[in-house]
């Protein structure tokens, strides 16, 4: 009796179906690619990483050239020393960076993502290391599918070991921007690193290892805010990577000797090389997509295939939406002009502000132990600590005066307020005033600090003078 074969329908419970609504991430194995843009990317890696790993070792005068000295609360960049009072400059500098990124994006699209972004640069190094151990794309796929053997363990182990060492060097260099790196290296050799230094080296090593070794394109897709909003700066004249369907479609494989146009075929031979080399795993022939980081690997791959087929290059190329439709290319347009002008003005402004800043900082800290003190003579006294910051390059002697509180007397513990360049001096002072001269319980008082050898160099800071509620007010 031949009964019709009932197909085996797998039954899953509703809960499990709901939990599996998203596909598990499939690991992407980008194929190796060579070409003009691949060479440019490699050059960018060498230059940018070169800067990162070499700069902390460079010196200026007798100190590190770039040092964000957190314990001493001073940031050194070239010949500048920045103090916490200069925090506004950091804010403006970050705004400048953002604005230049917007300007660059409106012109050149996601060139930052594909060529300069630290995530891309470090991932490229990690993948280069991976290729050295695990081989090309086919070999890597085969190795991952293979059962655990001693050989697989050695290969994977070797790769992770090199990754970890490189990540540790990266973490060490990062901490070297915040603590003098020569000193750090010496203490590392003697196993005498401080606990917090050790912690941060390991933390940044872990972040490098995790982001560049494991996460890779996931950072670009899920974590990067720029990835989400970069397209807002695009217009139809922004440079993008595009496949030319007018030239390429209909796609289909054919022999090189065949006249494909006669057969009604486009230039695309559907070799899928563009998909295989893509680090984010997209098919650029479907159009520009969110995941595309503009690395131009697909351009290199397609150009190589076009060369072999003796077709002209550029089936996938850098172009603009307008250019694809045959419209003229415009670089100077409202968007780019506005971004560019804003960038120019802000850069000039920040540069001028930095160059013209007063190299003298003053902070006034009122002694909070008591509201006010009464002297044996019956005067009301407030105690202050003045922090005088000499941001200049030579030593200065300063004079301290007060203003704004009639009848007040300033008493300095030491007459000689002398501050070395780049140093902060704490100056304890006392201000005394007759209580009957006070009009309010809380009065305003201004401290003036002037350089004795340079009357133009001065700073002032307002402070409060507290006393008893005045007799008249009672």
């Amino acid at each position, binding site marked *: 009796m031949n009964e019709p074969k009932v197909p085996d329908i797998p039954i899953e419970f509703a809960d499990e179906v709901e939990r599996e609504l998203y596909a598990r991430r499939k690991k992407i194995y980008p194929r190796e690619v060579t070409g003009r843009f691949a060479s440019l990317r490699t050059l960018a890696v060498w230059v940018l990483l070169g800067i990162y790993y070499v700069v902390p070792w460079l010196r200026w005068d007798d100190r590190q050239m770039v040092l964000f000295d957190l314990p001493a609360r001073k940031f050194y960049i070239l010949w500048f020393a920045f103090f916490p009072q200069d925090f506004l400059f950091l804010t403006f500098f970050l705004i400048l960076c953002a604005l230049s990124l917007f300007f660059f994006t409106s012109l050149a699209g996601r060139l930052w993502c594909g060529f300069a972004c630290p995530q891309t640069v470090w991932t490229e190094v990690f993948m280069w290391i991976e290729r050295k151990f695990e081989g090309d794309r086919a070999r890597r796929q085969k190795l991952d599918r293979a059962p655990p053997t001693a050989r697989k363990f050695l290969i994977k182990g070797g790769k992770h070991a090199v990754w970890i060492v490189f990540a540790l060097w990266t973490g060490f260099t990062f901490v070297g921007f915040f603590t003098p790196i020569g000193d750090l290296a010496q203490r590392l050799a003697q196993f005498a690193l401080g606990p917090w230094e050790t912690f*941060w080296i390991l933390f940044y090593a872990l972040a490098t290892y995790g982001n560049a070794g494991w996460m890779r394109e996931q950072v670009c897709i*899920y974590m990067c805010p720029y990835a989400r909003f970069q397209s807002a700066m695009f217009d139809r004249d922004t440079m993008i990577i595009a496949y030319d369907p007018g030239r390429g479609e209909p796609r289909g494989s054919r022999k090189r000797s065949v006249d494909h146009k006669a057969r009604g075929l486009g230039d695309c031979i559907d070799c899928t090389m563009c998909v295989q080399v893509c680090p984010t795993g997209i098919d650029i022939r479907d159009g520009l997509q969110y995941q595309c980081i503009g690395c131009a690997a697909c351009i290199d791959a397609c150009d190589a295939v076009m060369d072999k087929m003796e077709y002209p290059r550029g089936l996938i190329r850098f172009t603009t939406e307008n250019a694809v439709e045959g419209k003229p290319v415009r670089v100077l347009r409202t968007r780019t002009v506005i971004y560019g002008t804003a960038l120019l003005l802000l850069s000039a402004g920040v540069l001028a502000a930095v160059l013209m800043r007063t190299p003298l900082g003053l902070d006034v800290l009122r002694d909070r132990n008591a509201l006010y003190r009464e002297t044996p003579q019956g005067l009301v006294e407030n105690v202050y600590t003045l922090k005088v910051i000499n941001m200049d390059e030579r030593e200065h002697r300063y004079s301290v005066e007060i203003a704004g509180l009639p009848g007040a007397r300033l008493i300095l513990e030491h007459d000689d307020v002398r501050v070395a360049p780049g140093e902060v001096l704490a100056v304890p002072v006392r201000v005394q005033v007759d209580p009957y001269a006070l009009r309010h319980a809380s009065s305003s008082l201004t401290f003036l600090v002037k350089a004795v050898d340079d009357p133009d160099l001065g700073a002032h800071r307002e402070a409060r003078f507290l006393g008893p509620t005045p007799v008249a007010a009672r």
Partner: protein
Amino acid sequence: MQHADPGPSPIATLPAVQRVSAVLWPSFLFAGVATMVFFALIDPLVLLDCQGVPPLSRTGAYSLGFFLFWLLTAGASMCTLYFLGTRIPPRKPIEEPDGS
């Protein structure tokens, strides 16, 4: 009482890496900003003068401050993620007293 099933929250169906990143990464960024602004204005050594605070170096204070900020901002991000997942079943239309 039969309620219409609101279905799984779209948040719960997102990949785990996306949900974890959505909590840990923005909180990390803003904890960094908070740390920089706070400690540019306030020298940690001044804070360490307070009673009951463990004796830390400046670096230790920056680090501890950063992680406390991160904990706070991560808590906020977690709440955001949690509340984005709220789904209420569709209300069944009933006869209103005014006849609508």
